[in-house]
């Protein structure tokens, strides 16, 4: 199985070399550091440095987003999905040495961007002002006019619509003595009335108090210019600001070449922050640093050699103490089994007691997925799109594993679809019948037609289920053997297996036609299994009644449990049929109008929806069969995944062969 053995390592090195040593460990990316606890060791709090690095990484991110937005960095469709470049380690060193310089550029870019947004704010202010002046255009005296020799002038606005008559009558109502007031309405709209009032100096205060009561206000900073001039000045300021924006954008364009470096910087700071987080696990004395953790056993000796060659240090490897240490678990599989790792981890990562379930599970996972989706056309689409993602987009990391999973699921779907004769439902027969005039198109199914051989497929579904469950029990058997619990292996697993097979055969004979040759064996297996369960399952109990009680209880559990488990696999049939039925309905709807173009439109829309619905359903139900039916037989989970200290980069990868020099 593909669980990688880990070794515990301990390094003592010179304190002066500790930074380089940490860099080296991070670059190799194979070690997970554990907290070094010992009273002689001094611990270091790096949280401030980490926070600072994280802040810097945010600055870098902001800066390259600004560049993307402002300088319109073109990305083709491929780059939108996966956009990274490969660099050598020497290049990594080279750019990271320049990190402070690049950081300054990043800050500069952000300050330029701040300037631009400041200009934009000013422009919108000027625009508002200019709109306001527009509403004064018909007034031919300066807006800021206050008085003539003997009169006072008030230029201002109301925030409501008023007519001259209404205004005059309102003034008269409030102060009948004000008779020599001249008023002119310059502009009037729904929420704004601009007006000019003039009266003799001696009455100005009375007039002002009446007007204030009516909601009249004199805007601040009314210029001593006529409205059209003021407006023109606004316009010229706007065009000046626009020019400034363009200049700033041009200035920013000069930094466009730093785009890749700033993205690098983002990754670099994140990697540095990870490293400083890991530093908290180390301990130092006056002259030395002590680092401990886990490394995959296959890299252990090589790492020891390299560490001791490069640094004045001593490295010790040992077998971890599984009883007392929190040893992480590292799983490594080939792409076939690695695809379903995420499914397992979603349930719970394997613990040190578990065997890696992925290799066995992957086989059933792909088989069941294909059986449930069961349309060769859909499968083919999956295969093509996943191949595209893998080889054209070159996706990495967990995305690559997911792609692998759907690739194998797709292949399996093509396989089952071919057996069942489903190519986009009954597309080919429908086309032959409706557009080519062939009356009785032949069946494309190589094995069963789910719609007609429902019962057979139901039987096979449950049969596959029994195989799946037995596989789970076999793993349990293996695990118990490995723990040297031979009694448990023989008594806890074998009777249940006999029981389950016997139960399946006997049960099946109620519904299906079971060959006469097998029938008696079903009864025999069931009987032997039941007797063995009753006799052995209660063996931990002290007295004979307890033993018998425990045995009977186990038998009841096995009967109800396995009945439910096996019937649960009928969902294989159900989901298989759902895909086919909906696909056929889509084809039927498309063919009804008898027009090839309408047919194509309905075909594309309908099948897209069908694929979407059934992918989700199939994924969920395949997972369920693994989690509820399969894992319950042997899997414990709740392990801690091995997460090595490494350079987690989004926008670049360091070439693999460059790891050691």
């Amino acid at each position, binding site marked *: 199985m593909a669980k990688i053995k880990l070794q515990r390592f301990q390094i003592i090195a010179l304190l002066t070399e500790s930074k380089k040593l940490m860099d080296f460990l991070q670059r190799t990316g194979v070690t997970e550091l554990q907290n070094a606890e010992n009273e002689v060791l001094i611990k270091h709090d790096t949280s401030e440095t980490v926070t600072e690095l994280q802040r810097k990484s945010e600055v870098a991110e902001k800066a390259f987003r600004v560049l993307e937005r402002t300088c319109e960095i073109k990305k083709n469709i491929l780059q939108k999905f996966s956009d990274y470049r490969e660099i050598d380690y020497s290049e990594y060193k080279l750019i990271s040495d320049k990190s402070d310089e690049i950081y300054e550029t990043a800050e500069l870019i952000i300050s330029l961007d701040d300037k631009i947004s400041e200009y934009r704010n000013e422009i919108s202010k000027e625009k508002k002002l200019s709109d306001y002046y527009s509403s004064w255009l018909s007034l031919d005296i300066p807006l800021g006019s206050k008085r003539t020799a003997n009169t006072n002038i008030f230029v201002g606005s109301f925030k409501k619509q008023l007519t001259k008559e209404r205004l005059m009558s309102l003034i008269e109502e409030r102060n009948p003595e004000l008779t020599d007031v001249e008023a002119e309405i310059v502009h009037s709209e729904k929420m704004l009335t601009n007006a000019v009032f003039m009266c003799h100096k001696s009455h100005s205060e009375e007039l002002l108090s009446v007007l204030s009561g009516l909601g009249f206000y004199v805007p601040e900073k009314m210029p001593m210019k006529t409205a059209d001039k003021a407006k023109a000045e606004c316009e010229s300021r706007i065009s000046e600001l626009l020019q400034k924006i363009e200049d700033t954008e041009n200035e920013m364009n000069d930094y466009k070449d730093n785009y890749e470096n700033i993205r690098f910087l983002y990754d670099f700071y994140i990697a540095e922050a990870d490293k400083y987080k890991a530093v908290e696990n180390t301990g130092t004395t006056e002259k030395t640093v002590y680092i401990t953790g886990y490394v995959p056993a296959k890299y252990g000796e090589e790492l020891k050699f390299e560490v001791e060659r490069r640094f004045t240090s001593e490295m010790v490897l040992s077998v971890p103490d599984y009883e007392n240490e929190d040893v992480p678990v590292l799983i490594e599989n080939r792409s076939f089994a690695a695809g379903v790792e995420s499914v397992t981890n979603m349930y719970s990562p394997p613990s040190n007691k578990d065997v890696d379930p992925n290799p066995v599970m992957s086989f059933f996972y792909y088989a069941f997925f294909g059986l449930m989706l069961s349309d060769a056309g859909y499968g083919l689409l999956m295969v093509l799109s996943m191949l595209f993602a893998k080889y054209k987009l070159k996706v990495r990391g967990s995305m690559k594993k997911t792609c692998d999973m759907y690739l194998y699921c797709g292949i399996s779907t093509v396989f089952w679809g071919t057996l069942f004769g489903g190519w986009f439902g009954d597309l080919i027969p429908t086309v032959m019948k409706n557009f080519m005039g062939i009356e009785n198109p032949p069946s494309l199914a190589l094995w069963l037609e789910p719609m007609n051989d429902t019962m057979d497929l*139901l039987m096979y579904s449950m049969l596959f289920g029994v195989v799946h469950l037995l596989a789970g029990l076999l793993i349990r058997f293996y695990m118990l053997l490995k723990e040297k619990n031979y009694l448990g292996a023989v008594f806890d697993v074998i009777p249940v297996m006999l029981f389950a097979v016997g139960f399946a055969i006997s049960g099946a004979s109620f519904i299906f036609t079971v060959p006469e040759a097998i029938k008696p064996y079903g009864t025999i297996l069931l009987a032997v299994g039941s007797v063995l369960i009753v006799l052995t399952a209660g063996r931990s109990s002290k007295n004979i009644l307890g033993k018998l009680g425990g045995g009977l209880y186990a038998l009841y559990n096995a009967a109800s449990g396995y*009945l*439910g488990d096996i019937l649960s696999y009928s969902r294989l*049939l*159900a989901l298989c*049929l759902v895909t086919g039925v909906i696909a056929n309905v889509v084809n039927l709807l498309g063919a009804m109008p008898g027009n090839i173009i309408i047919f194509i439109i309905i075909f594309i829309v309908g099948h897209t929806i069908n694929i979407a619905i059934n992918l989700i359903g199939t994924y969920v*139900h395949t997972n*369920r069969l693994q*989690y*509820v039916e399969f894992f319950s037989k042997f899997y414990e989970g709740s392990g801690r995944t091995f997460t090595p200290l490494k350079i987690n980069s989004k926008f670049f990868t360091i070439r693999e062969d460059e790891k050691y020099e």
Partner: protein
Amino acid sequence: MNNLGLFFAILGAAFAAGFAGIGSARGVGIAGEAGAGLLTEKPELFGKVLILQILPGTQGLYGFIVALLLLNRIGLIGGTPAMLTWSQGLTFFAAAMPMAIAGYFSAVYQGRVAASAVSMIAKDSSQTAKGMTLSALVETYAVLALLVSILAVFNIAV
């Protein structure tokens, strides 16, 4: 009036698919509401919540299977419709009832257990397996009902 036998048989299929489906919809809905609440706080638990939510969906599938087998048995799909008498039709109807009734109620209750399991993993996400087991226990009775319905549908003489 001649075809009332067929009518009752189809009514049985409709009840099996319909009520088990409504039950599942309610169950999945109850669990989904609880799950959505949790996901606003801990979006990384999406996978686990999804599994808990889908558990009460099984009854709907079981109901669908009973309906399908029944329709297949009376020749409505994959053959010519059988001429059923009144009593035959009612017998088919009766055969579908266990799935309709137990499917409906078990799905709703399973949904409630699943919702509780969601609040359980809100506190400790390593407990998903236990929550799933608790919820799956409720399903046992839908499984028994499915079995009774299938046995009955297959052994009615046409």
